[in-house]
């Protein structure tokens, strides 16, 4: 499963946004979205990143892929320090991202074939004449029919659109995939399909995942290790088993207690005093 070589090293990373006030637009303070975060991801591993909205988990994911400017700290990929100003092109072949809402991340006026062909052409992943073939290979990889390439995003259901989003991310053959709430917008029965697809792709392609989610169930299912984030900082990180069975930090415990257990015999949130359907 994991080799002892970190693929990604995040070292004391900070992402701050200035708050500007007054007519001089003076920077009076900073929103510390990510405030000194350090962790590693090993090759072939899945690290889950959990936390509530506003804790900075998405910002961290976006900082790693270079969508948000890094304020301080260092990120190393495969032993090389990343410089987001100069390494953009080579970076995008190594790290890709899958977003929550596949509808807003796909161009409604592009066919699925175009969506997938564009990165192949721009980055010269395959020769121009092989592009149609490669598009079909990508579609098959994510479990879509090859006829999908001539259709538009609106013709697909949420689950299928997410498959397109994954195929697009995989077009550049990245080694690390950042998955930012990839199943949160999907129906329950579809979520499992996509989760299983992620697992299967990891086995086939040897991918490494940073899996960002607020749903503990999904993260538990897919992750080898889990990092719990609160107010811009990682408050606890450990193996999935440790986090769920032996949580140390008070916030992790709160989070676990608040998560509704899909088993009515183990209610943790509500103690029903009376009522009951069977009187």
């Amino acid at each position, binding site marked *: 499963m994991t080799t002892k070589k970190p693929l990604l090293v995040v070292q004391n990373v900070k992402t701050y946004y200035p708050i500007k006030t007054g007519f001089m637009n003076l920077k009076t303070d900073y929103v510390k979205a990510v405030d000194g975060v350090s962790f590693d991801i090993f090759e072939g591993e899945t690290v889950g990143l959990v936390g509530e909205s506003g804790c900075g988990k998405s910002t961290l994911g976006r900082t790693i892929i270079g969508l948000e400017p890094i304020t301080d700290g260092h990120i190393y990929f495969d032993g090389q320090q990343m410089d987001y100003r100069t390494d953009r092109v080579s970076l995008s072949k190594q790290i890709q991202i899958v977003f929550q809402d596949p509808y807003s991340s796909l161009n409604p006026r592009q066919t699925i074939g175009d969506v997938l062909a564009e990165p192949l052409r721009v980055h010269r992943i395959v020769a121009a004449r092989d592009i149609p073939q490669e598009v079909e290979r990508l579609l098959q990889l994510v479990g879509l029919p090859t006829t999908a390439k001539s259709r538009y995003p609106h013709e697909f259901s949420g689950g299928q659109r997410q498959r397109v989003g994954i195929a697009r991310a995989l077009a550049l053959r990245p080694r690390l995939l950042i998955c930012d709430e990839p199943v949160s917008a999907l*129906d329950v*029965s579809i979520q*499992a399909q996509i989760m299983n697809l992620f697992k299967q792709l990891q086995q086939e392609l040897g991918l490494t995942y940073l899996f960002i989610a607020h749903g503990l169930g*999904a993260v538990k299912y897919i992750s080898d290790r889990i990092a719990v984030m609160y107010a811009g900082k990682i408050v606890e990180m450990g193996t999935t088993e440790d986090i*769920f069975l032996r949580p140390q930090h008070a916030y992790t415990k709160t989070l676990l207690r*608040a998560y509704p*257990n*899909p088993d009515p*015999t183990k209610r943790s949130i509500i103690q029903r005093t009376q009522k009951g359907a069977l009187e």
Partner: protein
Amino acid sequence: MKSLLNVKGLTTAFETENGKVISVDDVSFTLKYGETLALVGESGSGKSVTALSLMRLLGKRGKIERGDIQFDGASLQTVSEAQMQKLRGDELSMIFQEPMTALNPVFTIGHQLVEAIRLHVNIDKKEAKTLAQNMLDKVGIPNAARVMKQFPFSLSGGMRQRVMIAMALVCEPKLLIADEPTTALDVTVQAQIMRLMNQLCEEMGTAILLITHDLGVVAEMADRVIVMYAGQIVEETDVFTLFREPLHPYTQGLLASIPSMDFDDKELTAINGAIPANYQHLQGCRFANRCPLATEACRTSQPPLVEVVPGHKTRCFEWQQLQRGE
């Protein structure tokens, strides 16, 4: 015991450009006083439209085609629109998923609460204000006097949902319809809101019709559960039986597709495929195309909803295959 709500053969349709779409198809159920009944299903299953039909908030294109709704001993069908307006918010209330869109952005919280109270209770403004403030206290809003003067945008999602609950419960309704009340909230806030709803409704003896897709929330809150699929009820039983021994392959698939919180490394089994697009014209069972147990009979004729075990209904020919050996 007499039931609070008795729905019989409810069928609701919408007029669309592509003809009539039946969203709720022959739905019948009862809800006892003080009970919490969960309506579970995926998007498009008809659970929200069922709730909106009860409140008669279907809009211009929606229409209840058939069926009878008895609420607290009276038929809601024969009630005039004016009377219905009196009932809404007084006897039956509803809270929605997104409290920001349900609150009016240009009026203060206090103004909106007072308006809601004075629509139903004949008291003066000052008394209504006190009542509103007490209610905000009750739903756990700190510094209620200040919040009364604030606008919705200055409150967090959880606080807004508390305001919605205050507004819905201020007249102590007999029925609270909660449509995905915690879906937009973080888990820790979700737990608070669930506790609050449960506590207040127990105090007031209010029954809850809880609409959700989250089986975790169902397991925590519900007494009884109805599972809907493609506009129909496919299974109905008490919450413990549903999670222990589901007798419909769809329910079983749903339960197998959510990761449990126990540490057991079980693989997730996804339900393949999706709800068929034009399911209303299907001859057979609407779940047949995704069902591992489907036979030829399932594709040609539709199974009825049958009470196969006392208190346990399912819409499946092959339910016996799902029964656990005793």
